[in-house]
């Protein structure tokens, strides 16, 4: 049994609001990810996925609970924790007036790689992600897919043992989507612990080893696909998702003539 490299324990985040009320965005989330495992953190919009991932990455300070990344607490050993982490979201941008090569070089320098190491790593990433056609163009002129490939390369620059991917395939065409998913799978096979959050449940079903279904800040379902099927009595991940989030009756009530099977297609792909 391998040691988990990511440990999330009773994580909680309460946002103050100006009206004085508290907003519990994340309420006691716990899970572990082992090296080589791809963990799918799934849930509807506003469930608290992104907040959870940001707390894991140390971008937000948890109100309660703790996080360990490769043994480091991101709130205390900030640098060591961040060094063990690659972070990628749909909203992360690139420096538009730099080329992908320059962006990678910059982050390589920030991580502290030597010049020779940087060059090798950049060449490797450009080769793996098939970026050579646009590696020296300015990022501002790249297509969404090219940008996302650059972003992935950026997250992998330091070859971190942990990857956090928040909607990495949002807005990508089928081809780039395939490239990204293959890459995630390959990285998992190379022993990285990957936390993946996505709305594309088919993709998640295809590549994740283990799942955490999050709803209203709490984990409502966990385990591998078999465990989730046993828990919910449904087969497909999208059905399981609706069942466990307690929204199936809710969503379908008042929509006459819509069969359950068809309606779930909208949530998946």
């Amino acid at each position, binding site marked *: 049994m391998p040691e988990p490299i990511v440990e999330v324990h009773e994580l909680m985040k309460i*946002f103050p609001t100006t009206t004085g009320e508290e907003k519990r965005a994340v309420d006691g989330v716990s899970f572990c990810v082992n090296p080589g495992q791809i963990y799918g953190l799934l849930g509807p919009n506003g469930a608290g996925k992104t907040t959870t991932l940001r707390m894991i990455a140390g971008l937000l300070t948890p109100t309660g609970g703790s996080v360990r990344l490769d043994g*480091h607490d991101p709130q205390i050993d900030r*640098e060591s924790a961040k060094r063990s*982490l690659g972070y990628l979201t749909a909203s992360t941008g690139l420096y538009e*007036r730099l080329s992908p090569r*320059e962006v990678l070089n910059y982050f390589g*320098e*920030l991580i502290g790689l030597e010049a020779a190491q940087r060059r090798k790593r950049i060449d490797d990433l450009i080769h793996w992600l098939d970026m050579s056609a646009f590696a020296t163009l300015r990022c501002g002129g790249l297509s969404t897919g090219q940008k996302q490939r650059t972003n992935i390369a950026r997250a992998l620059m330091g070859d971190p043992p942990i990857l956090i991917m928040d909607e990495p395939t949002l807005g990508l065409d089928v081809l780039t989507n395939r490239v990204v998913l293959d890459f995630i799978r390959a990285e998992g096979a190379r022993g990285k612990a990957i936390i993946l959050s996505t709305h594309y449940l088919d993709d998640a079903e295809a590549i994740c080893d283990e799942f955490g279904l999050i709803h209203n800040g709490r984990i409502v379902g966990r385990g591998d696909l078999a465990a989730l099927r046993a828990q919910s009595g449904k087969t497909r991940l999208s059905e399981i998702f609706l069942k466990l989030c307690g929204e199936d009756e809710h969503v379908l009530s008042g929509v006459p003539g819509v069969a359950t099977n068809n309606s779930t297609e909208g949530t998946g792909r």
Partner: protein
Amino acid sequence: MKSYSRIWTVYRKELTETLRDRRTLMAMVFVPVILYPILMVVLMQALSSEKGRQEESEYTVVVPNEAHKRWLETILLREDEEVNAEQKALDAAAKAMGEEMADPTGRAAFRTRLGSKQIHIVIADDPGKIWDIVAAGAVHAGVVVRPDPAVDRAADPNRVVQILYSDTNPLSEVIFRQLNLILQNEAGRIVRDRVTKLAGTPEVLNPIMTTNLSTTSPDKQFSKVLALIVPFLLVTMTVTGAMYPAIDLTAGERERGTLETLAVSPVPVGQIVAGKFGVIVTIAMVTTALNLGSMTAVIQFSGIAKMLGAPTSASAAMEEMEAEQTVQSAPAEPGSSAALQRINFGRRQALEQETNRRAGFVTTAAPIVLLAMIPFAVLFGGVMLAVCSFAKSFKEAQNYMMPVMMSAIVPAMVVSYMPTIELQGPLMATPVANVVLLMRELFLGNFRIEAVVIVLLSTCLYAAAAVAMATRIYGNEAVLFNDVGSYKTLLLRKFMRPQRVPSAAFALLTLALIFPVNFFVQSSIVTADSGWMDLCRAVGITQVLLFFGVVVFLAWYAKLNMRETFSLRLPSALHWVATLLIVAGIVPLSATIQQYLYATFPPTSQMQQMMQAEAKLLSGIPLWAIVAFFAILPGVCEEFAFRGMLLTGLRDRIGTWRTVLVVGIVFGAFHIYVHKIPPIAIVGMLLAYVCIRTGSILPGILIHIANNGVGLIADSMVKANDPRLMDLFGLPHGDEQTFDYSVNPRTMIFIAAVVLGLAIMVFTPKRPTPRSEPRP
């Protein structure tokens, strides 16, 4: 070293990216290097073509009858003659001096002169309707003379002339002004004729002739004009230059989603902000330098200097004046009044020639002015960075920039318009105004070390607070993500989370807040002629309200742990012993440091005057009040501000030694007199070190009280002819007090006590200070 190399990495990358931004390049290079000169050329062209148009235009003047027409035409012809004669005399003078003197003062370039040929005189069909003709715009002006020129002049030699014109027609205004001038000249000629006829000689016409010779060289005369304008222009340009990079590197980065990637990279926020800050200051300074260079070039090579009133040559102006007189009166004979005007004239010419050999003034002053702009760029770079860090988008940041720009430009403008304001008192610590005034002084060639030091130190303190604030805001999660609460949560107490100690930003901001107030109160105390009770009240209010009250209130507001922030705990027994040793020796030590510094860097006479004034101020105060207000109150209150808030704010971030250094220097800077800063800074460093080692504020309070109290008591005993305490310390007193430097062996014993006390603190374990989060 690693942190510096990463700051350098951030700096290089941000600079590359900024230089690839068209907007920045526009503000930085295009505007000063291309736009200003072009605008200037266009302006000059427009001015001269306007003048040309005025001179080439034809003007129509309506008069009631034929006699009017003849009368006016005669006057116009006479004016023509005189102008031609003047020009001829000028040309002759120029030829005699062998110089080009087509336009000796440059004034003619901006003066319109109309010849008689351009002015057409028409006779009104109906003399009673002249008003209506002019009002309808059919002609440019109307002239009515009473008594009518048709009437013989001998009967009544004086006439009244009425000129009708229209304010809304520019050409009408030109001819109106021109007619006035011509008629005045004609009046002058008539007076000259009458007087000459009566006296028999034109000499009587000039009872007093004045010549004005400035003993200031022409470049300095010019610099006086520039000193009023240029600092303001430079402030505006520096702010403009810093604006785009400040927005782009903060709000822009957030908008494009790159801030998140930077936040997850293993680099402390402070280093990222430091790199960005460096780029903003660099761009601001490059913009300023380019602007200054462009301005210099425009001033040197275009006619703008003449417009600004730069006297190109007083001797040339003199020639022109003499030429005018030659026409008006008889030629100057040797020994006549005109010749007497030439006394001292050689000196002036020599000064002008010497100036011509030197490089142009602007070229020599530019580097100094540029240096003076650096603290300003640092300050506004920091402020803009902090303000922009709040903004969620480029657009929002631009809105925030408006008040920031105003807060830079308005003080600069106000100061520019008040040439008699001097860099003194509270103004030295007033942000922006102090820099603008310092620049003006440098422009005029005044260099006062104390002004430079105070302006630089205060500006650095404000800038440090701004940068620390920017770091704090930049790393804040409410700023990192738009969806996390509102900014009120950053400012309102109920949203604040309890903190163990203040952040560096909070501590520096607190100090930056009380700095100008303290400066104002202190400088008003020393100049006041009020009694000792007023003085004590002012000191008491500053100490209790400012250093203690404001600091403790802000600590409460930010929910800081008071015990940790102000080190409210007892030192160990051994540290008590060490403290008492330092208490015993602190006065001889600080007196020796002071003597040593004064011997090495003798205070200027101005500083000595201030010291004497201060001593006189204290001499009238009873001993108990001195001890209470100048020893105990500062001992307690200042320790809370400097060794409390400031020290704990910095200690965990920048380490012991840098904290000791910064606390000492800031402590010194609060004591407004330049000569006091170094010795007080050294005592401040000692106090800071003691506080860090003992983990308690108490030893510092005791040492501070001893330092102030025992020193003042010893002084007042000397004044009462009782030098026992001074002798005990082996310190010179009374008449012996000079700026020579030698250490009495007795003094050495006391200094040894301090050293022993410090040694005990060095070699005994530091009191552990618990951290807010438990280490794993």
